């Protein structure tokens, strides 16, 4: 994960453990520091995983609150981010399972649409929309593996720790996700030429 703390714990954020200690010591407001530190990074995964901004925010909020309530169970506070991410992955899976009973939706970045105003959608916006559409058509397990590997840029070993799946299974999922995305998006590119 360039420009940010590695989730693998190779360079653990020095402050996380201190903040966790303060929170467990009764300083609840100190938890806001952890929320601010991880919210944007994890929001990206939740939004792409669930394909719906509102669901993603609820999953992320749920993950933060669950992490707070179970903070005493966090065995290695210096790796709070990794622990929180595992909770978020599980919350996204649960939400995805619930959402499959409802109509599948695509990512609608309301903020981006508001910013765009009345201007026509440019090529970049259309391309992003096609990506989101293709992503939404992936099997959730393939989508999860693709996002963890290619977007969050995690190593397979870390992905295995997060998801509970074996490395070989994760590699297969990533490959199938890439194959499917190529099929879906090459059609779009061919049609655009």
């Amino acid at each position, binding site marked *: 994960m360039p420009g940010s703390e590695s989730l693998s714990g190779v360079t653990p954020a020095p402050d996380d453990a201190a903040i966790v200690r303060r929170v467990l010591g009764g300083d609840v407001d100190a938890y806001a520091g952890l929320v601010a530190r991880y*919210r944007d990074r994890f929001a990206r995964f939740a939004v792409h995983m669930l394909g719906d901004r509102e669901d993603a*925010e609820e999953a*992320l909020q749920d993950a933060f609150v669950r992490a707070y309530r179970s903070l005493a169970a966090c065995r290695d506070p210096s790796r709070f981010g990794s622990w929180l991410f595992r909770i978020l992955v599980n919350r996204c899976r649960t939400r995805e399972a619930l959402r499959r009973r409802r109509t599948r939706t695509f990512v609608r970045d309301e903020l981006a649409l508001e910013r765009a105003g009345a201007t026509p959608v440019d090529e970049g916006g259309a391309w*992003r929309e096609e990506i989101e559409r293709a992503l939404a058509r992936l099997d959730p397990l393939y989508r999860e593996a693709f996002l963890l590997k290619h977007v969050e840029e995690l190593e397979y070993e870390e992905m295995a720790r997060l998801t509970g799946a074996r490395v070989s299974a994760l590699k297969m999922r990533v490959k199938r996700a890439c194959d499917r995305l190529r099929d879906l*998006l090459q059609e779009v590119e061919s049609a655009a030429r």
Partner: protein
Amino acid sequence: MRRDNDDLIERVAAELRRPAALSFGFEARVMAEVRSARQPSAWARAWEWVREPRMVALSPLGGLAMAAAIAGVVTLGALAWPTPVATPGASTAPAESAQAVQFVLHAPQARAVFLAGDFNGWDARQSPLARAPSGLWFVEVLLPPGRYTYAFVVDGSRFVPDPAAPRAFGDDFGAPSSVVIVGRGGNQAGGRSL
């Protein structure tokens, strides 16, 4: 071709790596919920843990092994469980679903009347009827819902069908018999409901 494909995936990933904006006030909402959250009790944590949905990664071989283990446990359980022995006249239906049915025969000259039917294995000595001064013989039997054929056994040897009930088609054991149908809602044909 592969180079183009890898470029495509990289362009997709680069697009998806752009930060996702959260709605205004997200952090405040989280902190408001955090401040109102209580640390759960050990029991609450255990309950949460058992009801949390999980995805289990299982190889086909592992799945087969688990299925075999479950089948083994079920088989052992079935072998260890005592097999119920069919008892003539005993009902396998829950007692609460059985209904009391009264059987009545007017036979003032009879010395003894018994009730025999497929609910008691056609045992001519198992269900004696009581005699009223008027010459009516009666007995109450608890019967689960179902269709039964029966007859009265008068003076130890004579099978008499119930004159107040429909006759059974084919008459079991070569003797005339009647039919009683006990319904789930207390409705019945033949015999008399209490």
